[in-house]
């Protein structure tokens, strides 16, 4: 089931939470939703799940507008809200039963679905406990289990791995990837490596607007079309070295990181490592470091969201 978001806008009083955003997510795609706190991620998710109303624009799930058919479309959405709210005095199994029944799962299938969810989410050891007695990681699993219990076409996960230990994070990521093969998944997170590990596509929003949209690869290319090298050159006057570097044909800019350490940005589609090496050989300078660096998603994120 595709999700299509058209000119979505939401105001909280005078504050614009989501400002005219449009995007599409196809079935079988996992979309990572990134943005600083207060960027409008959660608000957008709440609108998709039909919890809060849309001010302007529309959200289409499988071609149907949630404005008109919100009540029936809810059945196709699995939702894990932020902070994972759960009934702490309910036993895990009872809660899953309750969720399944509310989502309209047939009585005869409920037991099977619960068994499957317990297996997938690794809840077997804890299934008879009350939710309040579980550790945070297990609660998170219960939250995921209730979101998927009715086998929804669309999964909306607001920070699904928060509070999990590294092993669990790997498992949950694997699980999300698995689910994402057939279903449409939108997940928000603050953990950038997670997006790279899990998502097919990344959407960065800031102050309610989309600032970037694409795969991790394309985003990196867009952010820095040029090669970046860090090098440390000893036994020479830093000023001379810098000037000599700047004269090289492939070098676009040089910045000092340390006295003898430089960050060299190459001109588009050129590689400067060879020239730098030959320069140093010629001048008798010693290269103690020559590292090609990759732009990190963190840097892109910071660039796009801090101004």
């Amino acid at each position: 089931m595709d999700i299509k978001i058209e000119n979505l806008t939401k105001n909280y009083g005078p504050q614009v939470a989501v400002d005219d955003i449009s995007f599409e997510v196809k079935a079988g795609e996992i979309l990572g939703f990134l943005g600083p706190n207060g960027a409008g991620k959660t608000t957008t998710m709440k609108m998709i799940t039909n919890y809060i109303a849309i001010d302007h624009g529309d959200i289409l799930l499988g071609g149907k507008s949630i404005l008109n058919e919100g009540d029936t479309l809810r059945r196709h959405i699995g939702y894990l809200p932020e902070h994972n709210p759960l009934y702490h005095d309910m036993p895990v199994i009872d809660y899953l039963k309750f969720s399944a029944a509310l989502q309209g799962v047939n009585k005869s299938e409920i037991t099977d679905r619960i068994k499957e969810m317990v297996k997938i989410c690794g809840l077997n050891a804890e299934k008879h406990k009350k939710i309040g007695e579980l550790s945070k990681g297990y609660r998170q699993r219960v939250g995921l289990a209730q979101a998927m219990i009715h086998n929804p076409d669309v999964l909306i996960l607001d920070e699904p791995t928060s509070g999990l230990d590294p092993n669990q994070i790997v498992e949950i990521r694997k699980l999300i990837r698995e689910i994402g093969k057939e279903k449409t998944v939108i997940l928000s997170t603050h953990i950038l490596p997670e997006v790279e590990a899990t998502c097919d596509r990344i959407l960065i929003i800031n102050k309610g607007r989309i600032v970037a949209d694409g795969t991790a690869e394309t985003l990196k290319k867009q952010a820095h079309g040029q090669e970046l090298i860090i090098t440390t050159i000893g036994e020479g006057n830093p000023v001379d070295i810098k000037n000599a570097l700047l004269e090289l044909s492939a070098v676009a800019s040089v910045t000092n990181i340390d006295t003898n350490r430089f960050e060299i940005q190459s001109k588009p589609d050129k590689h400067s490592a060879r020239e730098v090496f030959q320069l140093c050989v010629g001048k008798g300078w010693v290269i103690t470091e020559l590292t090609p660096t990759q732009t990190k998603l963190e840097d892109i994120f910071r660039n796009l969201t801090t101004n």
Partner: protein
Amino acid sequence: MRPIWIIAKKELQSFFDSLIAYIMIVLFLGFSGFFTWLYGSDVFLVGQANLNGFFSIAFWTLFFFIPAITMRTLAEERKTGTIELLLTKAVTDRQVILGKFLASLLLVVIALAFTLPYYITLASIGSVDHGAILTGYLGLIFLSAAYISIGLFTSSLTGNQIVAFLLALFIGLFFHLIFDVLAGNFTGFTGQLFTTLSLTSHFDSMSRGVLDSKDIIYFLSIIVIGVFLSELNLAKRNLAN
């Protein structure tokens, strides 16, 4: 209909899980039993085979207990955020409210069912006006339903259970006492208006064995208004600017 019943079942279960149900039933039976059979103007002192004493005690105990039952229904969900999870399931706001209403009412009905031995005892020691007892019980159920809908409404206003409890008592007090007192102080139309608004007068006529459509309409309108306002409060999150 199915979602209403699912929610009601879950709510009722959580009343029993959290001991609220047991405390409520024990206290209710303790109070009403003590004053019906042992103390004050009890059955043996009055010497009549009716349950008027019980009905007037239940009239007060339910007034205090019901806000304690309803206070958590929506306020707690709002505070813990589970309301978001509930309302994004395939249920409407109305089904959620009605489910919670039904659960609270069922709990009161269960408590009232435990007083049926009173009736059986009475029937074996004297000649009882069965009709009056039936309408009396019906009156208690209607009264409970009315206070439950008020309690649901105050619970939908806030995330704080104590506020919900006190507010429900405060609003309830008008119907329970203040309108009745005011009715005695005014004559003519104003007096008539307050008599009509007072829950006491409507309950009294039912507990005396009079089944009047006026009373039923009165209770039903409080119930409908309370449920409707609660639903409105839930739907408020959902209003476009």
